[in-house]
């Protein structure tokens, strides 16, 4: 028996999310009194042995198959399910990324077991106790997970990666999963570039200036674009704006838009609905520019300027120019 961590990797290189999964898995395994195993699927996986060892993995399972070069969610799940059959782990833990959750949903369907997505805490047991994220992070749920095998994903950036006290050299066990054409029917056949260089990406911008319904129109975004330009930042918007057709959905911040994590988020003419704020929880500071003094009562706003964005923003831009910014 063991606890099994499924690691996302790129030719054996694992990122922050995978190390968080390993730490979370190690804590779960320690609480259950069991060893931690990890599995990597796809080419180059054995290179993950060294980092996995640092997080206390005793055995690394490496699945390779010619059909697993391009991403194929059901095939990955089938590979993990085959390993589950041999290893009988008490839990499989993975990343609450889009892809992690997708693979785990397939695992849930294949095994007919419950799957708890985006957990932030988990305690093992015959019935596992978890706390998971709902509403894009605006609400938490404490839940009990039944079934012989627990399928859990970890909400990204909700658990600190902590290397084990002593690094180990995990045993590497290779296998070639048995995959059918049906398992491989859904796979990536092509990758197309969408962003044509230039511009700052919303997800990684240090400064984001957003407009909401208060911008009034598509043209009303001119002062928002001007300020974002001066600060070398990106322009965002609320859903009220995208459904009005003023900006494209690629600019939308929120639960069903982009999640951002800038140094400062300047939200202009935005009321601060929970589904909007779900997208900017990662911002270090939030400044609201709003005509309604009530925004001061919104817990998520650290700073506020009370006033019409069409007067306040040009004044800020003018002040920045005075300070020498172009």
């Amino acid at each position, binding site marked *: 028996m063991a606890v099994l961590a499924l690691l996302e990797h790129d030719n054996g290189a694992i990122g922050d999310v995978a190390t968080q999964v390993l730490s979370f898995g190690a804590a779960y395994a320690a609480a259950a009194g069991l060893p931690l195993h990890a599995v990597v699927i796809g080419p180059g996986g054995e290179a993950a042995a060294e980092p996995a060892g640092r997080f206390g993995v005793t055995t690394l399972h490496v699945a390779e198959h010619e059909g697993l070069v391009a991403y194929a969610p059901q095939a990955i799940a089938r590979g993990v399910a085959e390993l589950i059959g041999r290893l009988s782990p008490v839990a499989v833990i993975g990343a609450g990324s889009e892809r992690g959750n997708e693979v785990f949903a397939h695992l849930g369907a294949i095994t007919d077991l419950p799957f708890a997505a985006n957990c932030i805490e988990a305690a093992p047991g015959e019935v596992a106790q978890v706390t998971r994220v709902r509403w894009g992070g605006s609400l938490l749920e404490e839940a009990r997970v039944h079934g012989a095998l627990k399928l859990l994903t970890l909400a990204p950036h909700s658990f600190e990666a902590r290397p084990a006290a002593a690094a180990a050299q995990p045993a590497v066990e290779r296998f070639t999963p048995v995959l059918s054409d049906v398992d491989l029917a859904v796979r990536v056949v092509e990758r197309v570039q969408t962003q044509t260089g230039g511009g700052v990406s919303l*997800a990684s911008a240090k400064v984001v200036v957003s407009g909401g319904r208060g911008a009034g129109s598509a043209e009303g975004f001119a002062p928002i674009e001007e300020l974002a330009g001066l600060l070398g930042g990106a322009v965002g918007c609320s859903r009220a704006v995208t459904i009005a057709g003023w900006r494209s959905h690629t600019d939308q911040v929120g639960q069903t838009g982009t999640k951002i994590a800038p140094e400062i988020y300047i939200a202009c003419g935005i009321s601060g609905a929970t589904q909007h704020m779900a997208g900017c929880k990662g911002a270090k500071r939030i400044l609201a520019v709003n005509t309604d003094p009530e925004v001061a009562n919104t817990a998520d706003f650290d700073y506020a300027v009370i006033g019409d964005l069409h007067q306040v923003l040009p004044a800020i831009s003018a002040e920045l120019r005075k300070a020498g910014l172009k």
Partner: protein
Amino acid sequence: MNILVCIKRVPVTGGRIVLRDDEQAIETRHLGFAISPHEECGVEEAVRLVEQNGGESTVLTLGPPEAEEQIRDAMAVGINRGILLETSEEWDAQATAAAIVAAVEEERAAGTEYDLIFFGNESADTGNYQVGIRVAHALGRPCVTGLKKIELVGGRARCEQEIDDQRDVYDVALPAVVTVKEGLNLPRYPSVPGRLRAKKKPIDRKTPNPRPAALERVRLKLPPGEDKPTEILGHGPEAAPAVVELLRQIGVI
């Protein structure tokens, strides 16, 4: 072509979430309800595909009797039929998927085979990321998730999924299950005649068989928030120097 869209009724929570005293659900007494944005795009896409290719679109929801409101909303933008699986409580993902599969099988027995079934990538409230995939497995169909674009060519679907700044393309044979995200299209607004027509469209009401929750909700709670007060930097254009000072302090200029 026959298309099914699975939608869920969710509260529009506004500025802050308030929980019921029993901590089992959001207090919705003063809230409106909506179809989640992802699913709204599924509805729009189904209507467009039927406009282009002919056929019939159906919307299905498992929820309280009041979820008729969301079915009528979908009908107002062009969906032809509705199926309401009436429940009094929130069901877990496995039970929801099982009820949807049973309904699809009943439809098949009655002569309607769906070429495409649309789901949201994740539901707005529970965010389980799985109902569509579970339904696809039970029906033995391929499932592509998180779509921002879908094109039907010669009995196949070319699907684009956004991943960071790129798009991954999948090509699957119909019948298929797809899960979609907001941004797939820009949903139309219902027209007044559309709303009137929606009132007359047929809804099948059924009571699905319950199944004990394997992912059992114990209680809901609000994430711990720092309840620090908002600092007012000023009023109107006169606040500009204070804002620039803040930007300087935090090192972005």
